[in-house]
C-alpha cells in the first residue's frame, strides 16, 4: 500500500472527531478528510456520557449566566474568551444536532426539554433521557455516513505523529486487522482522542481512554496544559466505577452518609430543603454543587468514619426512592438499569451505593480558541484538548457541548490551514513508516526478555497516581509519584510481550497505550507538584489556599529528555474578575 494522503486527518472518531469531519465535508467539500480511530466510531467513549449537554435555550436563561457558572465552576482558571465562545456557539450546535435527528427529550408542546445540573444556576442541560452521549454519538456517526467524502480508517492504532519542517505531515499507524504499519499523509492533523482516565485505577472511563492524542502531541513538543486538574465524579458504582449520572441529583436525588444524614450541608454547600419542598433540588446548592467540592466532601466524611464500609471500599448512599418509579423510569432509566444489573439495587426502593471515581481530564493539549496548538497544522478538540473552558473543575454537561463547539472550530481552522499549506513530504512519511515498522517488529521479536508484563506495569502506574496525585495531594506524595513514574518508564523499556501475532495484537496496542499513559501520568504528577496552591480539583494539603497572585495561570508541561519543564501562561480574564466561589448562599 502506498502512502495515502488527505488534506485533513482527524485522529479519533468520537463526538469531537465526527463533528469536525462533518464540518469539513459540509462546509469545505473541496477539502479531503479522513478519520482514523483505534475503534469503530460508535465504540468511542462519548457513547457513555449520560446526563446531558448544556446550552442556553430558554427565556429564563442567559449566555452570561452560563458563562458565569462555568467560570466560577472552574475556580477562575478557565479562559474567559474561550468560555464566551463556548456558551455563545452552544445553542446553534445543539439545534444543529436536533436537525440531524438527535432524539432530545421534549416538553409537552414539543420544544426540547432541559434539566438542572451541578453548578448551574438555571436549568439548561439538554438531554436524551440519560443516554445523551450515546444518542449524540450515534446521531453524529449516522450523519457522517451521508458524506462519501469522509474516509475512515476504523481500527487503526496511531503510533506517531510525523513532523517535519515544523508542521505535521501525517501519522504512522498499525492496521489492527493485518498488523501492517502504514503512513498516512495529511497537511493538517486534528487530535480528538478523548481523555485519559485509565491512568488511574478506578475510573468511569472505558478501556480505550489512555491519553493517546495527548501523548502524541507531548512527544511532538506541544505542551500539555493544566494536567494537574483531574475530575473525580462523586457518584460511581463501587467495584466497577460505572457512572451514575449527575442527572440523578438534577432530578432530586440526595446523598446521605451512614447515618442517613445529608452531609453536604457541612461543607459550605448550603442548607438542605425538605424533599417535598417545591424548590428542591436547589440549583448551585447541596447535591447540585460542583463535582470537585462534592468529591472532596466524600473524602472528609470517610476520614471521619461516616461512610459505609463495603466490599469494594467505602461508599455513601445516593437516595432516589422519593422520586418514585415513574420519574426514575422516564427520566433516568439507565440509572435504574445499571444499578439493578451491577450492584443488585433497585433505586425505586433502595439507595444506590456510590463513591468518588476518576471521570474527566480538565487538562490536555494546549490550544487557543481556534483549536490551534503551538505546532502550525496541528489542532485538537474535545477532552484531549485544553482550550481552556473547564479550568480547575468542569461543570457537568459542558463537555458534550465543548466537543461540538470546538470540534467544529478545529475543522474550520484546519480547513483554513490546508488552503495555504505546502504538500506533504512523502519521503519523510516513508522514512517514518519504515522506522515505526522496524520498531514494532524488533519489539515483537525481542520483547519477551523482561520480567514486567504490560498489565503489571499498568497496575503499578494506576496505584502510583492514585496514591500520589489523588483528590488530596501534597509535596511528598507527588514527589513519590514523579519518582515512581520515572522508574516505571525505565522498566517499560524491557516490558515483556508474549503475543507475536500480527492480527489484532491487543497486547501490542496495550503496550503502546501504556507508553502513552506513562507520558500523561508524568505530566499530571509534575504539573501537580509545581502548583503550590489549592484550586478546584487540585487540592494540596500543604498549600490549602487558592493563590491568585502566583497561580492565576495555566501550567504548560513540555517533554524534555529528563523531567518535564513546567511553564505558565496567564489566564484570560474578560468580564469576570476572580472572586470567591460560593454555593448555596446566593
Amino acid at each position, binding site marked *: 500500500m502506498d502512502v495515502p494522503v488527505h488534506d485533513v486527518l482527524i485522529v479519533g472518531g468520537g463526538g469531537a472527531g465526527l463533528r469536525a469531519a462533518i464540518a469539513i465535508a459540509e462546509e469545505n467539500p473541496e477539502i479531503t478528510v479522513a478519520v482514523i480511530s483505534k*475503534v*469503530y466510531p*460508535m*465504540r*468511542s*467513549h462519548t*457513547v*457513555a456520557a449520560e446526563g446531558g449537554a448544556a446550552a442556553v435555550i430558554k427565556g429564563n436563561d442567559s449566555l452570561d449566566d452560563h458563562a458565569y457558572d462555568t467560570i466560577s465552576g472552574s475556580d477562575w482558571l478557565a479562559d474567559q474568551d474561550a468560555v464566551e465562545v463556548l456558551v455563545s456557539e452552544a445553542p*446553534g450546535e445543539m*439545534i*444543529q444536532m*436536533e*436537525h*440531524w*435527528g438527535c*432524539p*432530545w*427529550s*421534549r*416538553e*409537552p*408542546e*414539543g*420544544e*426540547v426539554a432541559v434539566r438542572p445540573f451541578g453548578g448551574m444556576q438555571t436549568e439548561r442541560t439538554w438531554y436524551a433521557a440519560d*443516554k445523551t452521549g*450515546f444518542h449524540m454519538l*450515534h446521531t453524529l456517526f*449516522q*450523519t457522517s*455516513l*451521508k458524506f462519501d467524502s469522509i474516509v475512515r480508517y*476504523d481500527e487503526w492504532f496511531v503510533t506517531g505523529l510525523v513532523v517535519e519542517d515544523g508542521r505535521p505531515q501525517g501519522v504512522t499507524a498499525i492496521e489492527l*486487522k493485518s*498488523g501492517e504499519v502504514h503512513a498516512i499523509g495529511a497537511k493538517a492533523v486534528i487530535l480528538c482522542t478523548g481523555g485519559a482516565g485509565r491512568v488511574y485505577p478506578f475510573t468511569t472511563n*472505558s*478501556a*480505550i481512554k489512555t491519553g493517546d492524542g495527548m501523548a502524541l502531541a507531548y512527544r511532538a513538543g506541544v505542551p500539555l496544559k493544566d494536567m494537574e486538574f483531574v475530575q473525580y465524579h462523586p457518584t460511581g458504582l463501587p*467495584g*466497577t466505577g*460505572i*457512572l451514575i449520572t449527575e442527572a440523578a441529583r438534577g432530578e432530586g436525588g440526595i446523598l446521605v452518609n451512614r447515618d442517613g444524614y445529608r452531609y453536604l450541608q457541612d461543607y459550605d454547600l448550603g442548607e438542605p430543603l425538605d424533599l417535598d419542598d417545591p424548590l428542591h433540588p436547589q440549583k448551585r446548592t447541596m447535591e447540585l454543587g460542583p463535582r470537585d467540592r462534592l468529591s472532596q466532601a466524600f473524602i472528609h466524611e470517610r476520614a471521619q468514619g461516616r461512610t459505609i464500609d463495603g466490599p469494594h471500599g467505602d461508599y455513601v448512599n445516593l437516595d432516589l426512592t422519593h422520586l418514585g418509579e415513574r420519574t426514575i423510569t422516564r427520566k433516568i432509566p439507565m440509572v435504574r*438499569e*445499571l444499578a439493578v*444489573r*451491577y450492584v443488585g439495587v433497585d433505586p425505586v426502593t433502595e439507595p444506590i451505593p456510590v463513591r468518588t471515581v476518576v471521570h474527566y481530564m480538565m487538562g490536555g493539549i494546549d490550544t487557543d480558541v481556534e483549536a490551534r496548538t503551538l505546532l502550525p497544522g496541528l489542532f485538537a478538540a474535545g477532552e484531549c484538548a485544553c482550550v481552556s473552558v473547564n479550568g480547575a473543575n468542569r461543570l457537568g454537561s459542558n463537555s458534550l457541548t465543548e466537543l461540538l463547539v470546538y470540534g467544529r472550530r478545529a475543522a474550520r481552522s484546519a480547513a483554513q490551514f490546508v488552503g495555504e499549506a505546502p504538500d506533504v513530504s512523502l519521503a519523510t512519511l516513508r522514512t517514518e513508516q519504515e522506522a515505526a515498522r522496524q520498531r514494532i517488529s524488533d519489539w515483537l521479536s525481542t520483547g519477551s526478555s523482561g520480567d514486567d*508484563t*504490560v*498489565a503489571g506495569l499498568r*497496575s503499578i502506574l494506576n496505584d502510583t497516581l492514585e496514591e500520589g496525585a489523588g483528590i488530596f495531594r501534597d509535596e511528598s506524595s507527588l514527589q513519590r509519584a514523579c519518582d515512581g513514574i520515572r522508574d516505571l518508564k525505565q522498566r517499560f523499556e524491557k516490558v515483556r*510481550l*508474549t*503475543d507475536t*501475532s*500480527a*492480527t*489484532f*495484537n*491487543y*497486547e501490542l496496542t496495550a503496550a503502546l497505550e501504556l507508553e502513552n499513559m506513562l507520558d500523561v501520568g508524568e505530566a499530571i504528577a509534575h504539573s501537580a507538584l509545581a502548583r503550590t496552591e489549592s484550586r478546584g480539583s487540585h487540592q494540596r494539603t500543604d498549600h490549602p489556599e487558592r493563590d491568585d497572585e502566583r497561580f492565576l495561570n495555566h501550567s504548560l508541561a513540555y517533554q524534555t529528555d529528563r523531567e518535564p519543564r513546567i511553564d505558565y501562561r496567564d489566564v484570560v480574564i474578560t468580564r469576570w474578575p476572580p472572586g470567591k466561589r460560593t454555593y448555596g448562599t446566593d
Partner: protein
Amino acid sequence: MAPTDTDPGTRPVVLDVFRFLPDAETEPRFQRYEIPYQDDHVVLDALNHVKNEVDATLSFRWACRMGVCGSCGMMVNGEPRLTCEVFVSEYYPEPIRIEPLAHFPVARDLVINMEDFMEKLPTVTPWLVPADPKPVEEGEFLQSPAQLAAYKRFSMCINCMLCYSACPVYGLDDTFMGPAALALAQRYNMDSRDGAKAERANVVTSHEGIWECTYVGDCTRVCPKEVDPAGAIQMAKLSYATDWVKSMLLPGANR
C-alpha cells in the same frame, strides 16, 4: 473447616475459549482457562483476568464495560450475549464456553470481522432527511413526547451485532440487510421530522430487505437494549405495503 473443591466460591471458574490465530494456525481450537471465582464478575471480567494474569495472547474487543459501546458481544454457551452484561455466576460452577459471534468471519480468537454490516449500514439512509428543512437560526423542529416515543425504542441500537448472530436468515444468506440496519431505517421512517421514507424503500423493500425476514423473532429475543428489530421490520412491512396499496388506489397520494 478446610475448603474443598466442592465448596461454592473455592472451585475455579472454567472457561473454554475459542482460539484462532490466523498467522499461525489453519484450524480453530478451544483453550481451557481456570481462574478464581468472584461472584460479582461478568464474563468480560473473567476474560480480562485471563488477559492480564494468565495469557496475554487472547484477543477480544471491549471498551465501556457498561453495556453501551457494543464492543464485547460473544457467544456464551451458544447464546449471543454482551459479555459485560452476563455474570459468571449465571453459569458457575459449570464450564463457560466462549466463542466469537456466530454468522461472522473470525478475524482472530473472539474478534469477528463486521465489515459486512459497516458496508450495509449507509445504504439504508440512516440519517434524518428533514421533511421540511429550515436553517439552524430558526430553532428546533417541534416533536411531541408521543412523536418521540413512536420511534425512540428503535433508536436505542448499539450496533453490538447480537441480532445478526441470532438471525437464522442472515446465517443462511449474508446478503440480507439484517435486523439492526432495517430497524434503524424504520427508526428514521417513523421520526416525525423525517421525509425520506420513499427514498429508503429502494433498499429496505429490496430483495435483501424486509421481505427476507421470516419473523422468527430471535433478533428481538437476544437484543440487550430492547430495540425489538423484529417488530420494526414488521412495522416496516405493514407501512410499505400500505403505501403500495394506497399508491395503487390513489396514484400520487404518497408524495
